[in-house]
């Protein structure tokens, strides 16, 4: 009991950081009846650990509930709250106000995705591209039908792809990609990185069919290794590395 009270005293004696305020500019646009994007400004108090998503939700709660934003887990796991924050694609739940080092925060919908409304965008194309590269193990047998209990892998074999299995399909890489800024048919860094994830998996037998899918004019060859996709990835997937390694298979440097 004495221990509990000492913790309580310690917490009470911890000085709270004085609350500061930030100007949040939210892009408002409804493609069904708006001709152009408008910005609404709100002054919101924040503390050291306040995230961009927190202040957007403050706006929804106390100022304007009609702001459209997609979010779910609030811990950079679901990949729902991707948006452009001060010009760069980021996850709103994973971006603290303090790390932006600005008194004005502008949030806009991600580029290269059709806008549903305000900050919410459509993901159909990303999921189509993801599905196109066959994001599953391809082989004739399965762990259920095989005599083996499971398809064993060494830690070294797992290392080859585990980084790319961290993808949460948030779409930030596709939003930052300079090729996607102009080419509507480009398959995109997200799908290409996932193609590498399965090609590099020692359990997978579908390498040739997968390489055939991406070996086209709007496929892997439209990547120019600008690396912006890797810089914005919130999970350390490094799509640029995956794409270049994948290209190594097509160029005969890897087998």
């Amino acid at each position, binding site marked *: 009991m004495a221990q509990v009270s000492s913790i309580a005293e310690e917490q009470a004696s911890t000085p709270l950081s004085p609350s500061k305020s930030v100007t949040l500019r939210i892009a408002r646009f409804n493609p069904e009846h708006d001709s152009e994007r408008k910005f609404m400004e709100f002054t919101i108090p924040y503390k050291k650990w306040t995230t961009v998503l927190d202040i957007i939700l403050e706006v929804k709660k106390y100022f304007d509930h009609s702001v459209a934003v997609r979010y779910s887990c609030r811990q950079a796991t679901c990949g729902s709250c991707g948006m452009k924050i001060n010009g760069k694609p980021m996850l709103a739940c994973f971006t603290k106000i303090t790390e932006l080092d600005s008194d004005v925060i502008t949030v806009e919908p991600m580029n290269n995705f059709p806008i549903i409304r305000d900050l919410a965008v459509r993901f159909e194309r990303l999921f189509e591209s993801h599905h196109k590269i066959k994001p599953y193990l391809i082989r004739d047998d399965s762990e259920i039908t095989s005599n083996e209990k499971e398809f064993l892998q060494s830690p070294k074999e797992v290392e080859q792809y585990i980084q790319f299995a961290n993808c949460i399909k948030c779409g930030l890489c596709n939003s930052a990609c300079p090729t996607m800024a102009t080419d509507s048919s480009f398959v995109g860094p997200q799908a290409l990185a996932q193609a590498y994830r399965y090609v590099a998996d020692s359990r997978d037998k579908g390498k040739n069919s997968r390489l055939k899918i991406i070996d086209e004019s709007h496929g892997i060859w439209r990547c120019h290794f600008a*690396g912006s996709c890797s810089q914005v990835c919130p999970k350390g997937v490094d799509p640029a590395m995956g794409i270049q390694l994948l290209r190594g298979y097509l160029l005969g440097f890897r087998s």
Partner: protein
Amino acid sequence: MEHRDENKEGIGGMINPRRYGIERVAYLLMRLSGLGLLAYFIGHIYETSLILKGEVGWSEFLELTQTTEGHVLLAIVIAMCVFHTVNGIRVMLGEGGVGVGKPARPDYPYIPASQNVKHKIGIYSAIVLAAIAMLYGLGVMFGE
């Protein structure tokens, strides 16, 4: 219409070098130098074709390169040529999987291995060598 529907940044976003570090600057310079060298190549073919008009036509056009504007243009061509070559070698090696790092379990703060020091040195080297070559070219042309 499709451009607006997909909320694409277009060419303005593609060539914006301010948001993603030196790699995106290299991407822009590579594109610009590529287009510049293509334009020079077409002009060069036109220039050499003038020999068909005889020595007078050939000499008249060649005199254009002896002006101040001609010297500056040729110096820019030298810079574009050197940058495109050096950075092109870096990009080709990277696209073959050389120097882009090895896959590994990522640790926070997730610094991408493909954007490593080797590539940054390659980009800065291309810029510095292009500047040196251009200055040397200017020295030779204006020092005549």
